[in-house]
């Protein structure tokens, strides 16, 4: 293999599994260390810079970082990255003085944001400090998009949401709430320098089953129902509720129904339980609230007898997999079953919908009605119109919307200053030795064996009574510290300098997880087998040195490294050093 180029920022970035997996590349271990040191405000600001909504995300993030977390490979469970973020948010001091200054003298550029969700708010967050004048249009009564209309208060209290939305709006964004944009052309006619479309994926899918028209009064589209609850247009539901669908929306629907009078609430899903789209923790929370999840049931019809809605019938199916692993749901041939109920919530997916964008003004659409948007620049076919969040590539999640917002802001800033929109500056990286002295590193290099700590919840009897009572209580500070210490500090990199190495084997002998081998070089496939512990996880790189005096190379499998620093500790010549790698995505104006 060729020697690894550690100057390439992406090499060490990939070693920081959580940060690499985070769409916004939040420097996770950095803020976790700050939490361990009790520096909650600093930890909050590290988050705020990257993901804009630490308090919101610390409660609701889809957390792609956690399945990626190294700790989950070393033992059973990843670090509770997401809930540690919440600790920073809940315990921070005032941050007013740390927010960016907003220039009084504007730069003369005007930007319109359509939709007030996380994508648009992130664009505002990045452009306001640069002197832009921004108009935000949203059809709701307040900002936050689906974070406000969809994510229920028992998961995300309104105060937390409003606080973080307002940090941005208070920068001087001109808001036009209760304003539905019915024509993109009208907006373009206002001669903005740039327009950002962050309108989300606002249409809930409909099943269109037999009997639906007759039962219409009892059948609700999940996301419409959730927003009517959020905006207090609905405050009750029948005692017996069937929720159709297996994603997170279904979980929010059933749990909300339990709080609005639903006593016998069940989720009925087509697929097997293990293949449901909902996150495992969302399923757990639903079941904890006495909501059974019935899997392998395909809905057939809504049953209305003598003008009275009775319930829904289902075909019982088995999941059958063909050789490619593709799944088919095959009827068991048993009689359909009827689930009697008073109301049905349909949470079977969301779609984009752009009826308000004229098809003749230059935006190009694909066959599914999705706008053509560049995946890096977020630019559409009209050069000054950009898309982001769920509106760009379909429904995802808040953190993805934030990541889009940051990148769209870079593009808009370039566009408004006549620079190439495609240009992206390299990320800011630093690599700093953490050695303080003999046996002394500036990070906690011990590796405690503590298992993941459970986040305590409020009493169910209480939370089911009031949809506004938050279920999760968050870690207390002692537990937060213990959980933070589980982090392996994957950003403290093992940096190898071959000219210092005397090949004494000390690092090989000390490494607890057999990461290091000195061996003859070979092609990657072969090399992976030749190591002390064969490197079977292909998603993790091998760190290969230049050829050493013995004609061998040092090969380190990054997969199982605990970043304990013992290799550097035992190296007599400091050929190994532990260096903190900071990786910051370059944002607009930087």
């Amino acid at each position, binding site marked *: 293999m060729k020697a690894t180029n550690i100057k390439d920022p992406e090499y060490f970035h990939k070693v920081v599994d959580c940060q690499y997996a985070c769409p916004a590349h939040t420097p996770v271990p950095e803020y976790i260390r700050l939490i361990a040191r009790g520096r909650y405000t600093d930890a909050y600001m590290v988050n705020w810079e990257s993901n804009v909504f630490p308090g919101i995300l610390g409660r609701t993030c889809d957390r792609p970082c956690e399945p990626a977390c190294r700790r989950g490979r070393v033992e059973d469970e990843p670090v509770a990255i997401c809930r540690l973020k919440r600790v920073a948010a809940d315990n921070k001091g005032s941050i007013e003085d740390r927010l960016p200054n907003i220039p009084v003298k504007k730069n003369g550029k005007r930007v319109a944001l359509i939709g007030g969700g996380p994508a648009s708010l992130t664009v505002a967050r990045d452009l306001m400090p640069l002197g832009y004048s921004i108009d935000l249009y949203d059809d709701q009564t307040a900002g936050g998009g689906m974070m406000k209309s969809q994510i229920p208060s028992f998961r995300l209290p309104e105060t937390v949401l409003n606080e973080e939305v307002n940090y941005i709006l208070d920068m001087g964004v001109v808001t036009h709430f209760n304003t539905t944009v019915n024509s993109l052309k009208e907006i373009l006619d206002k001669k903005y320098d740039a327009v950002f479309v962050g309108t989300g994926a606002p249409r809930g899918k409909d099943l269109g089953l037999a009997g639906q028209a007759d039962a219409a009064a009892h059948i609700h589209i999940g996301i419409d129902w959730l927003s009517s609850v959020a905006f207090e247009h609905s405050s009750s539901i029948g005692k017996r509720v069937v929720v159709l669908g297996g994603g997170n929306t279904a979980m929010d629907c059933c749990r909300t129904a339990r709080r609005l009078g639903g006593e016998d609430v069940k989720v009925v899903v087509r697929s097997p339980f293990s293949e449901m789209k909902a996150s495992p923790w969302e399923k757990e929370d639903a079941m904890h609230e006495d909501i059974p999840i019935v899997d392998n049931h395909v809905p057939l019809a809504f049953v209305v007898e003598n003008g009275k809605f009775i319930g829904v019938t289902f075909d019982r199916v088995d999941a059958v997999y063909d050789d490619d692993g593709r799944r088919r749901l095959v009827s068991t041939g048993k009689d359909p079953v009827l689930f009697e109920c008073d109301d049905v919530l349909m949470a079977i997916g969301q779609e984009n919908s752009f009826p308000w964008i004229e098809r003749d003004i230059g935006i190009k659409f694909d066959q599914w009605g999705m706008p053509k948007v560049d995946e890096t620049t977020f630019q559409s076919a009209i050069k000054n119109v950009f898309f982001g969040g769920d509106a760009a590539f379909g429904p995802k999640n808040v953190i993805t919307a934030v990541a889009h917002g940051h990148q769209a802001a870079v593009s808009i800033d370039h566009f408004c200053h006549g620079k190439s929109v495609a240009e992206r500056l390299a990320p800011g990286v630093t690599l700093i030795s953490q050695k303080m002295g003999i046996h002394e590193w500036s990070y906690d290099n011990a590796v405690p064996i503590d298992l993941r700590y459970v986040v305590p919840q409020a009493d169910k009897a209480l939370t089911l009574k009031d949809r506004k009572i938050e279920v999760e209580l968050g870690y207390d500070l002692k537990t937060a510290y213990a959980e933070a210490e589980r982090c392996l500090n994957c950003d403290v990199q093992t940096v190898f300098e071959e000219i210092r190495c005397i090949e004494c084997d000390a690092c090989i002998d000390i490494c607890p997880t057999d990461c290091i081998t000195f061996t003859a070089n070979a092609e990657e496939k072969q090399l992976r087998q030749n190591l002390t512990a064969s490197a079977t996880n292909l998603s993790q790189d091998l760190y290969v040195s230049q050829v050493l005096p013995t004609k061998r190379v040092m090969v380190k499998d990054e997969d*199982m490294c605990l970043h304990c620093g013992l290799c550097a500790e*035992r190296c007599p010549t400091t050929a190994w050093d532990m260096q903190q790698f900071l990786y910051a995505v370059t944002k607009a104006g930087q």
Partner: protein
Amino acid sequence: MSYKRPKFRHPDTEINDLGYARQDYEGALSTLCAGCGHDSISGAIVRACHELSIEPHRLAKLSGIGCSSKAPTYFLGNSHGFNSVHGRMPSVVTGAAMANRDLIYLGVSGDGDTASIGMGQFVHAARRNLNMVYIVMNNGCYGLTKGQDSATADEGSRSKKGDPNPFESIDLCALSVQVGATFVARSFSGDKDQLVPLIKAAISHHGFALIDVVSPCVTFNNNPDSTKSYEFTREHLKATGTMDFVPMREEITARYAPGSSHEVTLHDGSVIHLYKMAKGMDPLNRVSALNAMEESKQQDQILTGLLYMDPDSKELHEAIGTVSRPLNQLSERELCPGDSVLQNINESLR
């Protein structure tokens, strides 16, 4: 800050026939200087014992005084251990081996501990063919007392703060062949591929097995003018050949070109495969072994690998005909069978 070895191990770590991982053969975290060759030898011992599936309680590690003699603390934490007096490890092993012939005895010593103060003890243990593995972690100096030249320092070699050594060095391998050791090998701490099979073979060998391991002292004797530095050793290494060790239980899988390999079957049924042997080198022949060592020395080369062995060796217990049951398991009645038995013996000698 922490200087503790994390508890986690690689999830694919190998488990041996006894169900143990390598971790189960480790000891306390080393306090030797970072980069000390002795630590690598400890690592090789851990690997050899793990791969041989040795029951930890069936092994006793014994040592004298020195950095090398401290090393047993850093491996085989679940085995018996005895850190004795400077140069006196062979006596303690003799006593222990006499009392309990069932244990595996692993003596660990330094060049100072062996070739200076312990010389008298060392040669007699070899001469009696005491059934033990005797590892010398040889750094050409007294590491623990800050690097004075030892008796194995080569003439002209200079340690970090010293003058060129004016004296002839003692070659422990040649010496032990002469006095009757039945397994003699040399190796280098930085060459585990060679060292691990040698340790395994030495453990399987019946009789006195010496492995003299060049083990650089990074702190006092790893400078360019030293002949026991990493760099000098690497540049002057010459192997007698390559050795594979196949334990008794295992099937022989490697294939050797006909005539290229020499098989030696050990007492316990294990097999040593010697191949790529240097011309004229026959490790079963004392004269050949001594010649090869002398020749290498003339050429400033450090000859490593298996140098000499006698597969038919008779260890001390066999030589003096002790009972097969370990003495420490005999009861008082067996040891003191009473007056009538004594009378009978006396009668028989009249």
